[in-house]
């Protein structure tokens, strides 16, 4: 069986900046894989390349054996991408937004409705889904967007900082959604976060990213043991020579 994600030696250059500098990693099917690192490490760029938004300057990425450059349209059929600062359409209600997004996945009206209903369940927003999204708090919007990303049961969900900027309760809710959905539907998840403690509890495996390169990779527990650290933050600090 093909790997969920197979990234080989990706380089991405913006002008004089090397955002990705020979990045390689792989994600197994149904695995939750975390790219972690500080701001500016290249996490978002890596996820954008995987989700067909950006072209790698060099290197190859395959999603379940499909090349993201040569067959981008095919890749888009099996992925769902949640950008870090994603927004909603302000004048649509939460329910309308979910229906609008569901229609891109199926032409069947009943299926669309079912998909939107399932997403509505995931959000836990209940009656508030009838309100326009411009009235939502940041946490409510994020729950809506996470539900949107998972509602079509993608083979690969790419989640950029899924709990970024959320309070403890909303962050907990979003993490629970991701865990439950992966378990129930066998979705493969590639996510990024600069919150290393959070990722430790959510991911099966993680890769520590610094200056566009992977500096360490493995299961959180293994990494902590190998670097004799109490948590991934300490691991990272040791790897980059800060501790």
């Amino acid at each position, binding site marked *: 069986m093909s790997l969920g994600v197979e990234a080989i030696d990706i380089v991405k250059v913006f002008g004089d900046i090397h955002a990705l500098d020979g990045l390689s990693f792989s994600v197994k099917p149904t695995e939750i894989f975390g790219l972690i690192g500080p701001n500016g490490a290249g996490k978002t760029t890596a996820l954008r390349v995987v989700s067909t938004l950006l072209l790698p300057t060099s290197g190859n990425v395959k999603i379940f054996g499909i090349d993201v450059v040569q067959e*981008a349209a095919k890749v888009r059929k099996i*992925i769902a991408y949640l950008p870090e600062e994603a927004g909603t359409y302000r004048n649509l209600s939460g329910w309308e937004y979910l229906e609008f997004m569901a229609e*891109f*996945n199926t032409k069947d009206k009943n299926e669309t409705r079912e998909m939107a209903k399932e997403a509505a369940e995931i959000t836990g927003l209940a009656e508030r889904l009838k309100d326009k999204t411009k009235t939502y708090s940041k946490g409510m919007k994020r729950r809506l967007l996470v539900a949107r990303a998972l509602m079509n049961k993608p083979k690969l969900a790419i989640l950029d900082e899924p709990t970024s900027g959320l309070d403890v309760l909303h962050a907990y809710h979003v993490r629970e959604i991701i865990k439950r959905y992966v378990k129930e539907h066998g979705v493969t998840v590639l996510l990024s976060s600069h919150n290393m403690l959070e990722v430790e509890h959510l991911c099966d495996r993680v890769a520590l990213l610094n200056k566009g390169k992977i500096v360490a990779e493995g299961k959180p527990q293994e990494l902590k043991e190998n670097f004799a650290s109490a948590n991934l933050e300490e691991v990272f600090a040791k790897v980059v020579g800060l501790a």
Partner: protein
Amino acid sequence: MLKGFGNILVKEIKELVRDPKILLGMIVVPLIMFPVLGGIMGYSVQSAREQAEKATIVVVNNDRGNWSEHFMEYLNSSMTVSIVNDTTLDSYTVLRLLSDYNTTQLIEIPNGFNANITEYKNGNTRINATVNFYGVFSGGGIFQEVGSAIIDNLVNNVNRKIAPNAVYTFKSTIIKGEIQKNVDPSTISRLMLSQAIAMPITIMVLLTYSMSIAATSVAMEKEEKTLETLLTLPMDRFAILMGKLSGSILVAAVGAVAYMIGFNYYMGSFTSSLGATLDLVSLGLVPSVFGYLLLGISLFVTLLSALALAVIMSAFSEDVRSAQSLVGNITPIIIIPALVLMYVDVNSLPLALKIFIYALPFSHPIIAAKGVVIGDYWTVVLGIIYVAVFTLVILYAASRLFATEKILTAKLKFRWLRKRAKKPTKELQ
């Protein structure tokens, strides 16, 4: 002084000066636009005036008396004349002579001119001498009536020399190859001039308003952070472009229909206000149904090209505000043809300016509006074809932009002024 004022002021100035779009829109464009506009306007008006004044007039002298020779001398001293003697004038001959001498004005000194003046001078003031003036109406412009006005001046001068009201001018206007007797070309010109002023203004407003709406389409997606999600959905990226454009097209179509209704009312108001004295419908100066249809199509394709241009420009903006200011920078290419064509007929412009005006897609509905009135449908149709091709090119460029990562990463930078562009981005399949 207010505490903190200086600090805020310095920050504001830094932010404004460092935003290339504002710098371009507020400083560079006006600095370039107004001198260019002034230059073009001055040049156009000057050349149109010179052309009108230099125009040749065909003089058909069917009277060989002293007074007619005297009148000829006046004519000769005032304008360039081509003299034809002893030719009986009917509609066909008038048109042939105008065509042969490549001019738009003809004056006939009819047989009996000399005798009538002599009678008049002898005290029989019931008899006037008449000269017949024919002017071709070619669509307007403020100098259209120059020929007719010169004849009026001339006749007044002659009358002053001979006797008040000795000579009378019988004026006819040639409209679409038909001679309309007792219709003064200058009256028609003045009438059509008000149309020539109102139309460019309306089109200018419609175009800038529609572009401003379309400019927000992509920029809004960027500002609200919804574009990235949209670009990763299982859909054709061209569908995003076409969807956005179609929304704007609907607005444009409604705008075009509203415009046509307004225009029809506008033309109708002239016809009714003039009453029995001058009926524009019978003179053929109101567009036919086909003319209205062509004008509608011309307006529609021009709006479409403007909208496509606005959409592509908004892709280079990060938010709605900068999209609006960026699109505002192309206002000069809407204003210039509108202002120029308000005052002068495109055919009276020097060749280089004529090419410039024809090259601007936004000139064509204005030219079309004149064209359908005077029945010059070919110019209108060619204009529609040109603008349609221009629109297709813009749409193609927009589709390429949407197919690449440029739609996300494109920004207006001043760096392109200093550095050569990198290799074009590969396209995602």
